């Protein structure tokens, strides 16, 4: 080892960088020797006694460490916010922090029994997090980086590629880039670790009603700012949950009641608010690839011995999130419709100023219905768990705008479509063929149908190849699945477009593909996905992807 970088941390420190192979005097110097002047009594090298080749990142980290002892103000802010967000979610934790005899900082979160369930530290210029959920500490370049590294570490801990799908990540999908406030990501990490800890989770959080004088006003005030770091999608989810439940409880008719969310700041300790914040944190955690139960990080859990109970647990979570996201869109837009003065004002989407109105009475029923409908039939649980969870996540994204658009009035829907059109400008869409086809289906307004890009469609097909369903792009239709467009085809198309809410469209140069998205949830061995295409004299092609039973009703199965 000839290239050794040497930094000292104390006030008497001097820096020396040895580059030459002839500078043997420093060949055996270890970082720990330089930080503390201490020598290992055993002569063995500890994990934090590192000899580092010259590396620009190491230089930056070492300089940063030299300059900063203890946590920075921003780091402390994020850590304390995490503590407050956990409290808002109903999780009672205690925190503590300190510094080593060398000035390196640590920060711990403890459960109600005063047991540490996560330890953050920084030394040797690197950040680390340690918890029960992962055997070895995870290292990163910052607290925010620990979130990514922790997610990656859990995925890498799986033995096979298939098992890696057990950790669901929306973020890894190119279209769904998730931009998060570092504080939100950190809170999601601790939330995830907390939920993964069996022993900790077994200790139920305690809610203690206090007298009016005991209400921590400072906590009330900071709650708003803390929740605001969560991404807008998570906040919408929280809004939908709160509004739906309040409406369900008939509180909408009493919007002037003291307990309603619109009349006062966010109530940090209400059970409803806790559920909402917990849901928001869960959504953030999932979006960055963090699991929410130890089931997810357990290799064996989704293997051959996966139990229906475990799968149902995950499904329930995803279904709730899916429903909440869908309803959040609806609720938010309805609220804007009722309060036009807040149009284009993002702040109305925060949970701090939501006032349920009687016009939203149906929202609660819808969300309950959605959750019920989202619970899978048992045959789905026999499918590959990876693709199963992937599809559930897909549905969150694929259906929310669709649901929203169908629930809005014409004017609002028009606005949504204009946004969609902006997003799709890059797509090579043949509107002329689309228009010609539109003319043939007079009863259906094709422009109201949500679109998928070709890439999104290919991803949908790839996912379902794992479940041995038909893949249209990679598994070309047999010749008998082509036919000339006729009245039967028109009737069938009209049927699926008018009777299925969740139909998407892929508009290619000379082909339009209609996909019944929900069919991918409903398909099974007895009723598989079926694709069929019809051609026109002008060379255009119409294809459908849906349940075989649907097309069979029109006697169109080849």
């Amino acid at each position, binding site marked *: 080892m000839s290239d050794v970088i040497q930094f000292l941390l104390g006030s008497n420190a001097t820096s020396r960088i040895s580059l030459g192979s002839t500078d043997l005097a420093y060949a055996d110097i270890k970082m*720990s020797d330089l930080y503390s002047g201490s020598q*290992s009594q055993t002569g063995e090298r500890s994990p934090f006694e590192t000899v580092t080749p010259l590396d620009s990142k190491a230089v930056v980290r070492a300089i940063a460490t030299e300059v900063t002892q203890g946590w920075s103000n921003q780091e402390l802010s994020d850590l304390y916010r995490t503590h407050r967000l956990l409290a808002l979610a109903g999780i*009672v934790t205690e925190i*503590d922090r300190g510094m080593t005899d060398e000035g390196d900082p640590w920060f711990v979160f403890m459960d*109600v029994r005063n047991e540490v369930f996560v330890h953050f530290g920084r030394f040797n210029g690197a950040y*680390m997090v340690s918890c029960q959920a992962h055997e070895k500490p995870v290292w990163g370049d910052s607290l925010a980086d620990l979130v990514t590294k922790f997610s990656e570490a859990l995925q890498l801990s799986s033995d096979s590629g298939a098992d890696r799908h057990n950790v669901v990540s929306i973020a890894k999908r190119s279209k769904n880039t998730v931009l998060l406030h570092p504080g939100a990501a950190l809170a999601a990490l601790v939330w995830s670790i907390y939920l993964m800890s069996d022993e900790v989770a077994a200790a139920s*959080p305690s*809610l203690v009603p206090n007298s009016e004088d005991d209400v921590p006003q400072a906590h009330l005030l900071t709650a708003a700012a803390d929740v605001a770091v969560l991404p807008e999608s998570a906040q919408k989810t929280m809004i939908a949950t709160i509004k739906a439940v309040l409406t369900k409880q008939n509180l909408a008719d009493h919007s002037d009641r*003291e307990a309603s969310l619109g009349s006062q700041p966010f109530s940090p*300790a209400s059970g409803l608010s806790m559920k909402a914040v917990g849901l928001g944190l869960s959504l953030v955690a999932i979006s960055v690839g963090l699991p929410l139960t130890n089931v997810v990080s357990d290799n064996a859990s989704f293997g051959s011995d996966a139990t229906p109970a475990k799968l149902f647990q995950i499904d329930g979570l995803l279904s709730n999130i899916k429903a909440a996201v869908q309803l959040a869109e609806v609720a938010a837009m309805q609220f804007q419709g009722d309060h036009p003065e807040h149009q284009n004002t993002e702040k109305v989407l925060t949970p701090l100023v939501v006032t349920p109105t009687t016009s939203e009475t149906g929202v609660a029923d819808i969300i309950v219905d959605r959750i019920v409908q989202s619970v899978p039939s048992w045959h789905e649980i026999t499918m590959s768990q990876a693709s199963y969870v992937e599809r559930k996540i897909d549905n969150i994204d694929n259906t929310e705008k669709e649901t929203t658009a169908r629930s809005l009035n014409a004017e609002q829907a028009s606005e949504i479509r204009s946004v969609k059109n902006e997003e799709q400008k890059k797509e090579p869409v043949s509107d002329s063929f689309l228009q010609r086809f539109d003319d043939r289906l007079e009863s259906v307004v094709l422009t109201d149908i949500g679109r998928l890009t070709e890439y999104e469609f290919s991803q949908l097909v790839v996912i379902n190849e794992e479940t041995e369903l038909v893949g249209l792009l990679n598994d070309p239709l047999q010749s008998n699945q082509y036919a000339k467009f006729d009245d039967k085809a028109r009737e069938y198309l009209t049927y699926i477009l008018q009777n299925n809410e969740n139909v998407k469209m892929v508009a290619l140069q000379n082909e339009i593909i209609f996909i019944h998205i929900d069919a991918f949830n409903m398909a099974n061995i007895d009723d598989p996905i079926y694709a069929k295409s019809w051609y026109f004299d002008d060379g255009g092609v119409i294809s459908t992807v849906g349940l075989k039973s649907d097309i069979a009703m029109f006697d169109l199965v080849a």
Partner: protein
Amino acid sequence: MLDKITLKSPIQERDPRVDLGGWLKSLREGRGMSQRQLATHLSLDYYTFISQLENGRGKIPPSRYLDWAAALKQEPRSFVKKLMSHYDPATYDILFDDRDVKEK
């Protein structure tokens, strides 16, 4: 009312482990060891854990009791007895409370 309910931590008193942490720190310093050196001796992944323990947060895993006793040059039985008196005082009292023994 919703706004009159708030969270209250059950951890309201100074944890006795803080005293134990001070004791562990005195043992380490008595041996002339830095926190990093002790962590190295114990093959710990992160030496900030030593500081955490000395501040009365967390516990030494039972599987490492003997390693710690050796590192701090302590007689194992009395060392573990001291740990138990702080980590699990109820059990400690049942097993070692001299007053009960005398009464019997």
